[in-house]
C-alpha cells in the first residue's frame, strides 16, 4: 500500500527508523507534536533491528537479546500518535527544512519545523585488491539477508576484518547453521596496547561481557587467524580465493564468499547535502557532523541523532534520539516537555551508553593499509577509478575530492561517494601531506538517492497543481 504524508507541514520530521529514529519519533509524538517518521526500509528497525517486526528468525537466542530490544521501541512508537511511512526514501533536504521523499514511485514534499536526521551508519569502505569481484560482499549485506530472510552462507566462506559487528555476524551465522571456514582478523597488534588505558571504562560497559562471550563462542567453532596485515581477493570474474599475510606466513585459501568489514561510519550524505557542517574525526577516521549537546547541527532546525551523529552504537542512538526530540519539544512546545524524561536523566543515560566507546574505537581503528590502497586497486567503483589514477591526478594538480572530479569522475556516479569518499579523502591527504580536514570531502547533492525522471516529471509544479493533486 502506498501511503502519502497526511499533512504538508509537521512540527517534527524524523528521517530513519533505526534505534535513534524510533526513539525520537515516539518522544516527539508523546509530547503532542505533529510527527512524521520517514523510513526507507519495509519495516522499522534500521540495520541493527532490521526486520524486527517480520524476521523469520524467531528463536530469540539466535539473533541475541540486544536485537529484541528493538521490538519494545517499535511498540512504544506504534502506541504513539506519530505518523510512520516505510519505503519512503528521502532524497532531498535543504536548509529551509523542505523535504522530498519518494514513496511508492511518487515524490511527496513536506515541510518541517524541526528535522531529526537518524540515517545511521554505513560500512567503511574496505578497498583491497579484488574487492569488486562477485562473491565479495560486506558483512552488513550478509547480515541484512540473515535478518530479513534467514539466509546464511553454505559455500566456502571467509570473513575478514575487525570490529564488534564482525563477531556478532559470525556468531549469528553459526547459530543459524551457516558455514564459516576462516576468520581473518585484521586488528593491528599495536591497537591492543593503545586501547589499554581505556580498558577500565569498557570493563564496566554493557558491551564487555557480551562481546567477550560472543568471541569465545565463535572461536570455539572457527579457525581465527589474528594479526593479518595483507589481504587480497582473486578470481576470474568470480571470487576463487583469498590471500593473506599474518606474521611471517603468507597463505591462500579457496573461497566462494568473502565477507569484509572494518567498522561503520556515519552516513553523512543527506546531512551534508542539506549544508550541515562536518569535521574529520581523528579517532573514528571519518566525517562527523558538528553538533551541540542536543544534537543540533550548524543548520537551524536540523538535528542529528544516532550513529549519523558519530558512531556510538544502538544504546547511545536510542538516548540521542530522545535528547534530540526533547530539545525539539523544548523549542516548539516548552510546556509539554514536563511529561518527558528530564534532560539530566537522558544525559546520564547517554554517558552510560557511551562508556567504553573510546576503547572500541581505539582497539578497532582500521589499519592504514586497509584504508588507503595503492596501485591498481579500485577506489571508486561507480567510475572504476584506481588508487594510481587518483595519485596521477594529484601529481598534475588535483588538490581535493571536488577538484579531482575535473580529472576523474570519482564520486560522480550513483553512489555519490558512499563507497569511495573516505578512501579518496585519506588517499589525497596522504599524497599531499595534508590532514583529511584540510583535504575535505565531496560536495554532496540532492537527490541523495536517485529518482526516476518520470517520477520527477510527475511532481506538482505550481500551487494550482499541488491543490489539484492534494485535494483533487
Amino acid at each position, binding site marked *: 500500500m502506498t501511503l502519502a504524508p497526511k499533512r504538508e507541514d509537521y512540527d517534527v520530521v524524523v528521517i530513519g527508523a533505526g534505534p535513534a529514529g524510533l526513539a525520537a519519533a515516539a518522544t516527539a509524538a508523546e509530547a503532542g507534536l505533529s510527527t512524521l517518521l520517514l523510513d526507507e526500509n519495509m519495516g522499522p528497525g534500521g540495520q541493527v533491528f532490521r526486520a524486527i517486526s517480520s524476521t523469520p528468525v524467531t528463536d530469540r537466542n539466535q539473533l541475541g537479546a540486544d536485537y529484541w530490544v528493538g521490538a519494545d521501541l517499535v511498540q512504544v512508537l506504534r502506541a504513539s500518535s506519530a505518523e510512520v511511512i516505510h519505503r519512503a526514501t528521502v532524497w*532531498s533536504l*535543504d*536548509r*529551509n527544512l523542505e523535504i*522530498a521523499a519518494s514513496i511508492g514511485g511518487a515524490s511527496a*514534499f513536506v515541510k518541517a519545523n524541526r528535522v531529526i536526521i537518524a540515517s545511521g551508519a554505513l560500512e567503511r569502505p574496505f578497498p583491497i585488491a579484488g574487492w569488486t569481484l562477485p562473491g565479495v560482499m560486506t558483512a552488513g549485506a550478509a547480515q541484512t539477508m540473515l535478518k530479513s530472510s534467514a539466509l546464511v552462507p553454505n559455500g566456502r566462506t571467509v570473513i575478514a576484518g575487525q570490529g564488534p559487528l564482525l563477531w556478532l555476524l559470525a556468531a549469528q551465522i553459526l547459530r543459524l547453521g551457516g558455514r564459516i571456514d576462516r576468520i581473518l582478523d585484521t586488528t593491528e597488534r599495536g591497537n591492543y596496547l593503545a586501547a589499554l588505558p581505556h580498558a577500565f571504562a569498557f570493563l564496566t560497559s554493557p558491551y564487555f561481557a557480551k562481546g567477550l562471550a560472543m568471541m569465545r563462542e565463535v572461536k570455539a567453532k572457527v579457525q581465527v587467524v589474528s594479526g593479518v596485515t595483507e589481504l587480497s581477493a582473486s578470481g576470474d570474474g568470480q571470487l576463487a580465493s583469498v590471500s593473506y599475510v599474518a606474521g611471517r606466513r603468507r597463505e591462500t585459501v579457496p573461497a566462494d564468499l568473502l565477507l569484509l568489514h572494518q567498522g561503520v561510519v556515519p552516513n553523512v550524505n543527506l546531512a551534508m547535502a542539506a*549544508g550541515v557542517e562536518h569535521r574529520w574525526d581523528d579517532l573514528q577516521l571519518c566525517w562527523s557532523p558538528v553538533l551541540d549537546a542536543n544534537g543540533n547541527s550548524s543548520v537551524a532546525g536540523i538535528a542529528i541523532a544516532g550513529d549519523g551523529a558519530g558512531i556510538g552504537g544502538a544504546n547511545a542512538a536510542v538516548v540521542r534520539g530522545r535528547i534530540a526530540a526533547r530539545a525539539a519539544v523544548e523549542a516548539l512546545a516548552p510546556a509539554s516537555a514536563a511529561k518527558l524524561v528530564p534532560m539530566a536523566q537522558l544525559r546520564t543515560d547517554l554517558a552510560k551508553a557511551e562508556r567504553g566507546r573510546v576503547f572500541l574505537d581505539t582497539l578497532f581503528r582500521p589499519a592504514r593499509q586497509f584504508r588507503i590502497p595503492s596501485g591498481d586497486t579500485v577506489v571508486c567503483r561507480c567510475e572504476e577509478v584506481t588508487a594510481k589514477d587518483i595519485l596521477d591526478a594529484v601529481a*598534475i*594538480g588535483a*588538490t*581535493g575530492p*571536488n*577538484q579531482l*572530479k*575535473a*580529472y576523474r*569522475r570519482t564520486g*560522480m*556516479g*550513483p553512489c*555519490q561517494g558512499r563507497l569511495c569518499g573516505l578512501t579518496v579523502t585519506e588517499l589525497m591527504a596522504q599524497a599531499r601531506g595534508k590532514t583529511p580536514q584540510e583535504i575535505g570531502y565531496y560536495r554532496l*547533492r*540532492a*537527490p541523495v538517492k*536517485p*529518482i*526516476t*525522471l*518520470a517520477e*520527477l*516529471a*510527475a*511532481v*506538482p*509544479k*505550481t500551487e494550482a497543481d499541488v491543490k489539484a493533486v492534494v485535494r483533487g
Partner: protein
Amino acid sequence: MTKNVDAIVVGGGIHGCSTALHLCLAGMKPMLIEKDYAGRHASGVNAGGVRQLARHIPEIPLSIRSMGIWEKVAELVDDDCSFESHGQVLVAENEEELAVCRARVAELNGLGFTHEELIDAAELRRLVPAVAETCPGGVVSRRDGAANPAQTTTAFRRKAERLGATVREGVAANNIRYRDGRWHVEVGSDTFAAPVLVNAAGAWAGKIAADLGEPVPVETVAPMLMITSRVPHFIDPVVILRGRKLSFKQFVNGTVLIGGGHLATPYQDRNETVLDWKSLATSAQTVFELFPVMRSATIVRAWAGIEAKMKDDIPVFGPSSRHQGLYHQFGFSLHGFQLGPGAGAVMAELIVNGGTQTRVSDLGIDRFHPSTLQNKRTS
C-alpha cells in the same frame, strides 16, 4: 611588503584563467587570485555548452572569435577539455516558433553572420532522431558543441601557471585601491601591485565594480542543472528549445545533462544554493514529453552554480570608464563559458595593444557610465 607583478586578475573562473593565460602568451607575468579554487563556481559546474547558437548580436563577434580557439583548444592548453563538436540544435516545437527562427536567421544573414542555419523537420529528425515527431524544424549551428567545464577551467589555470602566471587559490582579493599609478590588492597577509587589474570575479565582480565607483545593474543567480544515470547512446548534438527552458546534452559515457536556466536560490556569502525542485520538475516533464527514451532514466544529481546576470543579459567587457588600468570581464549572464577562451585572448589584446580587431565595443561598462577617461582608446 608589496610585491610587484605585471597584472592582477581577480577571479579564477574560465574568464580569469583564460585572460591570465593569454597575458602570459603576450609576455606578461600576471597574478591570478581566486577566493575558492579555479572553477569552483559557474565556470566549473555549468552545462559545458560551446555555443554560438542563439546569442545576443552584440556578443556574436566575441563568440565567433572564441569558437576558433575552441577548435584548437588542445594545442593551447595541452588538454582536450573533452571538447566535442556535434553541433547545437534549437528545436522549434510548432510553426509559430519556426517562424521566429526563420526571421532570426534572416536577420543574422543580413548582418553577415552565417553560423546559424534554418533546418526543416527532416534535417531536424536526422540530427536528433529521438525528438518528438511533431516538431517542424529549427536552427542548427554546426560547429558548436560541448566541453567538460571543470576540466576546461582547470586546464586553462594549469597552462597559465606553466607559462609563468602565479595562481593564489583559497584567499580573497581585498582592499583593492589605486595608488601611485598601480593597483594594490591585499591577498591574505601579502599585498600585490600592478599597473593592470582585471575584474573577472563572476558573481562577486559587481561589488568590486561598485566599490570602484562603477555600479552596474547586475544580480546573482544560480541556474540549475541535473544529470541522469547512463542511458544507451541516442543523441549527438546539444539540443535547446525555442519556446521552453530546456537544454539537453548526452555525454560519451551515456549520462544526460538537463539544464535550461531554471534558477535556484543563491546564498552567495556561504557559497551555497538551495534548489527549486518544482522548477526542475518542469524540466523533467519537458524531457519526458520530447524524449520518451529518457523516461526510465534516473536523476543522480542536481546542482546550481553561482554567477552574475546583467539586466540586459550582455556581459561587461573591456576597459573601465573611470580608471586607468582597470578592465572588467564579468556578467556573462548564463552564457559565458563558450566565450571564455576568446574573451581572454581579446582582453589580453586590449591590455597589451590597447585595442582589438574583434568587435566588443557594445559590451563596455560605458553603456552604464559615460566615460570620464581622457585618453580612452576605442576598439
